[in-house]
């Protein structure tokens, strides 16, 4: 436990003053441009994924401003993931309803399919709206998440509070070419801070940015 903070301090002490020039441009990408890019362009896409603080030669990289992003939205294909999930739920509920009607009230055979359609429409609608509501922003001193259809939730995670950052890819997410990022704090809502529906390179890039910002936020304090 002694080594780690020492590392961070070292890193902090080699930092240039935070008002180094040219803070805005390099890693900021327009998301819409990314969106239109499909799988073929993926390997060429992650230029900003390379700006790990470790191998940064440029002074710009150590400036917190270099790691921030504008307000970003999720990858559109996460919609299909969510819609698919809603359909599975609808299928299960519809199946249960069908079985129940067959057993209890066979004179109303339409109830099962009706349940399926209803749940599917509601679920899919919710999934699409949820996708539209999602946005996140990596700011100078905190991560801001904004999402929610029925209940709109905005979460601020100050980098000083970040314990660790995971990227996770479940089997279905892998099949869809997606990945999610989980940011842990010591608070209870740690598990809530999950950004789903990121492209794999995007989530590793975010992880790098957040890591750098988290380290920096401590370095600055350890004066």
């Amino acid at each position, binding site marked *: 436990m002694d080594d780690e903070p020492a590392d961070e301090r070292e890193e902090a002490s080699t930092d240039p003053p935070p008002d180094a020039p040219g803070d805005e441009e390099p890693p900021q990408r327009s998301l819409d441009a990314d969106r239109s890019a499909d799988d073929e362009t993926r390997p060429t896409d992650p230029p900003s994924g390379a700006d790990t603080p470790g191998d940064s030669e440029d002074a710009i990289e150590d400036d917190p401003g270099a790691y921030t992003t504008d307000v970003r939205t999720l990858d559109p294909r996460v919609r299909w993931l969510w819609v698919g999930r809603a359909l599975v739920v609808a299928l299960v509920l519809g199946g249960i309803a069908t079985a129940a009607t067959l057993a209890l009230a066979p004179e109303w055979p339409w109830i099962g399919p009706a349940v399926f359609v209803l749940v599917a429409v509601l679920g899919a609608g919710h999934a699409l709206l949820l996708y539209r509501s999602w946005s996140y922003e990596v700011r100078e001193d905190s991560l801001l998440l904004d999402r929610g259809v029925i209940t709109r939730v905005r979460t601020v995670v100050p980098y*000083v509070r970040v314990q660790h950052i995971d990227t996770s890819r479940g089997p279905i997410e892998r099949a869809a070419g997606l990945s999610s990022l989980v940011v842990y704090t010591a608070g209870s809502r740690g598990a809530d801070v999950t950004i789903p529906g990121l492209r794999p390179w995007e989530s590793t890039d975010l992880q790098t940015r957040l890591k750098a910002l988290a380290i920096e936020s401590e370095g600055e304090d350890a004066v």
Partner: protein
Amino acid sequence: MQLDPLSIPYRAVESGLQVVIGIAIAGIAGAGSVGGAEGLAVFGVILVVGIGLSLGWQVAYFRRFEYRLTEDTFDIDSGVLSRREREIPYGRIQNVDIRQNVLQRALGIAEVRLETAGGGQTEARLRYVDLESARHVQEEVSRRKRREHGEHVGDESAATERGETLFELDGRELVILGIVSMDLRLLSLIAVPLSFVGPSVLSDFAPTATASLAIVALGLVGLVVASALVSGGLSMARYYGFVLTDRDEEYRYERGLLQRFSGSIPKDKVQTITLSENVLARRLGYASLSIETAGYAGTGQGTTGSQSAIPIAKRDHAIELAGRIEDFDALSFERPPRRARERYAVRYALVLAVLLAIAYGIVRLTPLSFPWYVLLGGVVLVPVAAHLKWRHRGYRLEDGHVITRNGFWSRRITIVPIYRIQTLVTSETVFQRRRDLATLVVDTAGTYSLVGDDAMAVDIDLGEANRLRQELAEDLQESIVEYRRQRGRDSFSAPNEGVADETSVGSPGG
């Protein structure tokens, strides 16, 4: 150092009880299949072998368990089949508790629990050591922790060892505590089985309908009284002889009539403090105070009880003590806007409407008949309830603290030092959006927040919520810098040690 040898028979009995029951069932099954005296012999053999095995296991456990207080870690080597060697740095220990139930007191042994912030459960338990060693561990851990902070630790002068008594529960307060903590939730526990048994018993004893109704009414009253007495008595026993002392770096408390309990709360690990007062306590002018650290896992009932700093005290006194722990200015609150009150009125009206519909449905569809329209009288209560709910909400933003207040039946005032904030969340439900309201949740690493009782400013204006969220996030940055600088000055610890201390409170459920 090893556990107390008496822990072998105690643990054997304790863990053996379930085993013995299992053995007994197996034994009876075996005996049943053989039958007669032979069966009894089989049963006896199985029982003796089972107990022997259990005892043997405990002996092995005892022999393979060892703990050490080293220079900077608390080490425990344990495990019979799978060995575990655990080192806990003193600086990471949040609480050290000693607990003893009646039997353990008779035997002179005690359980020691060390809590850290990481993980979902108690970090280390010593089951069981003799009381003296337990005290020794508690003292040593806090002494070495102080030393780790770089403080000058003199010889154990009597003053620091005994500390200053902050609060002592006297007889009067104990009685009030009993009254205030009467809890009708126990009622449901008794009521459920009774509702199954009740009707059949009733039909046997009561010949007429009126007589049975009278019996039911009497029984209900009796139940309420009984459960109130039991719950009140339980908390009186729990907090009997409560003493809170202030030692340099930590608060120490002791309590309990049958089960003795002694715990430590390190001052620098305090996450939030909560002043709670239910309806009764408010009437009587009393309040209770609890201090939260990140140590206790959010599960289990022991947690809520064990963190109480002041089980009950005159409200002013409780507030004054709270002020000693956290230096806040005042407890005057800003209420949510009036339109929040309308929201509650609508909500209660809807609940009432649903109840009415159910009652009406029952009357129409079942042979049962009762004046369902009596429920209409509830309309009068709706605005009152809405007003009360609104009145008891509030929030307050100070330089170093954010304070929230919620709840009519059991009002909780939560004081959160800004440098303890973990995340900030605003949320708006559909219904809140209609009225431009929002809820601000101030999340900390404290235990209550793990079970979902965060500090919340509910139903405040949307713009205000967003403004508060941003402002608090900024204040957090500043206060962390300030806090660390101060700590760096106060104790001679390296600044980066302070950093590690602040941020490494672990993640829950890890």
